[in-house]
């Protein structure tokens, strides 16, 4: 049961983030260089940087807009919009900090967390705020939501490519590491190993 789950998760991972063919081909390992010294994605970093500055502007506009149209909303949408705003506020902070740390320090788990939060939470929520006419969208809110949706969709695409590049780079480094570890055994250790082997052989 656990094996089947693991196989399923592995196959899903291989479909969503397919390893590049050259990374899995054992013949090419010794030929391939590990590429750039850094694999952080510049477009993603720029998008995150500007998103961090844009976030307070969006938040204040949303809250002021909500306060202005609160009376005109039905009870259901009052609850829905307040819930969405609270969730988006918290998620955005977590998402942006994860993206920053993941991209700058080239850590895959943080970047993957950022990408999942962006894809699964921010995209539907921001599209909901932009496109659902029942929430009495003010023109000002329309404008700020359009810009937020552009940011979020751009980060989804750029995040995918960044994670793929990062994963390929780390797979390559890992494979190359295995070869360099063998070369680094010093000569004394080698003789010791050989001597020990001969001792055992005679005995």
């Amino acid at each position, binding site marked *: 049961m656990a094996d089947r789950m693991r196989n399923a998760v592995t196959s899903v991972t291989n479909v969503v983030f397919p390893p590049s063919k050259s990374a899995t081909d054992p013949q090419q390992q010794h030929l391939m260089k590990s590429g750039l010294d850094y694999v952080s994605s510049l477009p993603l970093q720029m998008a995150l940087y500007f998103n961090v*500055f844009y976030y307070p502007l969006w938040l204040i506009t949303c809250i002021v807009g909500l306060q202005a149209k609160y009376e005109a909303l039905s009870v259901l949408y009052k609850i829905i919009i307040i819930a969405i705003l609270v969730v988006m506020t918290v998620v955005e902070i977590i998402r942006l900090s994860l993206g920053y740390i993941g991209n700058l320090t080239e850590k895959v788990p943080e970047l993957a967390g950022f990408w999942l939060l962006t894809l699964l939470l921010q995209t539907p929520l921001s599209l909901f705020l932009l496109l659902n006419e029942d929430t009495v969208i003010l023109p000002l809110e*329309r404008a700020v939501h359009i810009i937020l949706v552009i940011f979020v969709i751009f980060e989804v695409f750029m995040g995918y490519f960044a994670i793929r590049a990062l994963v390929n780079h780390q797979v390559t480094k890992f494979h190359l590491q295995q070869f360099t570890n063998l070369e680094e055994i010093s000569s004394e250790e080698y003789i010791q190993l050989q001597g020990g082997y001969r001792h055992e052989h005679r005995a």
Partner: protein
Amino acid sequence: MAVLNGLVPARFLTIVAHLVLIIVLFWSRGDNVQACLPKYYTNTEYERKDTQLIIGLSVSLGLFLLELIGFIGGLSMFLPTQGFISTFSHASAAVSLAYFIQDSWECDTFWYIFSFCSCLPAIVEIIIFMGVCCCNR
């Protein structure tokens, strides 16, 4: 570079503020068009003024695109001159457009705002494009 560290986000935010107000104007230009017509107006006059305002807003959006390509593409992101010109003009545009919407100014005054605050950064941006492409600066 220490000066530029604050200039780049400031420039970005003023561009965004100006852009937001232009998009708002697309949806709420009714009061402004009515303000520049006489008390009793015909539908054709209204349509004419409305179309003029829409054209102005659309050209403004196009100039925005031009400037954003230069800014995000990196051509003019780290040039302090263009940074200051851009920040100043977009900030003044944002303030004037806020008054424009709030106080229902005449739609003809939009063209003044447009010429000083949208055209000026775009023209400087085009000059920078020429400089980068032709003279390899």
